[in-house]
């Protein structure tokens, strides 16, 4: 049985979601950057520049492999071919961490390229736990599971998200990836308290923290509807929620995620510096 509290060999330093256009900047002037995260699916080709760059980067930085396509919450079986591709990537790269999402993205062999929501029920819990066990057995290592951004709720849910995640760590020994922006987005959208969510979250199982930007919209009643877009700077209330979290969890590996409208390296470097300062506040 894996131990959910032994969950990451990433350093408790700032990391960034790797984009190929930043390759030279990262190699020449990483600043406080301590590690990199890649999306697993972008490195499942047979060769070429992406794989070669990843090999070079991995000689210099710890790498976190973050999957976006496994559909761990899917009602159907996991895609065995995709699981094999993941196993292959993890086995040659030997990354410091491997993570995926509490979501589904495939149904009847139809992949949607989005992270779709789950009701929190004992039935869902049993299914997700079985899938996590299958992933960890196949890939041969512990995985981290990321909390989603929620836009809506399921009337059928009987558990809170934090209880659901805690139960998964206890049943499977998986660790957790705490996305603080997702916490803020979900709490705003579902009219709950982000601090209360952090208070309820099993922080001892957290192996990595994500920070990203979101878009602001409103639903048909005029209530705020935040959308997890990864296309902007992290907003001040999310930085404040990070401080709140780190004060309780202690230092954690912090990732800046910026996946759409990707800015120049100098802009990301400012976000990385700010994450570094947040860590300094809790590092004795």
């Amino acid at each position, binding site marked *: 049985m894996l131990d959910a509290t032994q969950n990451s060999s990433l350093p408790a330093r700032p990391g960034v979601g790797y984009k190929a256009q930043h390759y030279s900047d990262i190699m020449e002037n990483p600043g406080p950057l301590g590690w990199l995260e890649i999306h697993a699916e972008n490195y499942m080709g047979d060769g070429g520049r992406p794989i070669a760059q990843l090999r070079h980067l991995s000689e210099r930085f710890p790498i976190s492999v973050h999957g976006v396509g496994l559909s761990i919450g899917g009602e159907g079986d996991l895609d065995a071919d995709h699981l094999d591709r993941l196993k292959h990537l993890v086995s040659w790269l030997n990354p410091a961490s491997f993570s995926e999402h509490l979501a589904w993205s495939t149904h009847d062999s139809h992949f949607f390229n989005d992270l779709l929501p789950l009701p929190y029920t004992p039935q869902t819990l049993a299914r997700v736990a079985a899938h996590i066990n299958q992933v960890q057995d196949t890939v041969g290592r512990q995985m981290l599971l990321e909390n989603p951004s929620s836009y*809506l*709720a399921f009337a059928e849910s009987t558990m809170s998200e934090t209880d659901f995640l805690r139960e998964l760590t206890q049943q499977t020994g998986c660790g957790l990836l705490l996305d603080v922006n997702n916490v803020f987005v979900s709490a705003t959208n579902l009219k709950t308290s982000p601090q209360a969510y952090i208070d309820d979250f099993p922080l001892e199982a957290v192996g990595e923290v994500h920070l990203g930007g979101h878009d602001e919209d409103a639903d048909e009643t005029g209530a705020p509807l935040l959308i997890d877009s990864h296309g902007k700077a992290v907003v001040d209330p999310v930085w404040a929620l990070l401080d709140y979290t780190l004060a309780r969890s202690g230092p954690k590996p912090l990732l800046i995620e910026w996946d759409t409208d990707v800015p120049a390296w100098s802009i990301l470097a400012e976000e990385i510096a700010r994450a570094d300062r947040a860590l300094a506040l809790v590092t004795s």
Partner: protein
Amino acid sequence: MTVTQAAFKAAMLDPAAAVPPGIVNPDGAAASKRFDVYRNNVAVSLSDALETAFPVIRKLVGDAFFRAMAGVYIRKHPPKTPLMMFYGDAMPDFIGRFEPTKSIGYMPDIARIELAMRHAYHAADASPIKPEALSTLAPDALMGAKMRIAPATQTVISNYPIHAIYLANTQTDAPKPVMQPEAALITRAGFDPQIHLINAAATTCIEALKSGQSLGQAMATADDTVDLGAVLGLLLAQGAVTEIY
């Protein structure tokens, strides 16, 4: 009250469908605009993947047209795997049958070139032999020799000037296309795929070599318009031959 993933999917892919009962806002009321976030994310992310995959097609038809066409494509050909880098394999045939584009004869073949460039970019790395390796072969052994061709190497043949059209839409100083049949060879010596204009009959020859036939057999598949020496020279110079055996 249980919302199955089948019901979620059906409603997500049909903008006119009602949101499944059981999906609610924080006040317990129906949440259609919230559900639209997923409808939008799925459509936009798949459409973006196609834009990335087919920049020349997009340039040829324009942004608005491409978006509309992608909207039809993603419903007809949803991805079967999470590998977005290879999404769009059915695009050439789709364009050839799609009512507004089916009369534009060269378009499917341009899409084939874009697919080939993309597959070449992600193909397995290869260790090419030196271009002079062929000259060390005894003349009587030449026709029986076989070649292993680098995995990135691909050909596209067309009744239209696809090489010229591709260049005119990817390079600033490319000459104006002239109406004639053209064939293209795609190779990848380092990390960046390159496109070359080749004789149409030479594609048969190259495909024969790829399938493991000897030089003599490959030559027999081509007509006398093929300069085998030039074809081999191009393959060798572009690092497309990994072994002679």
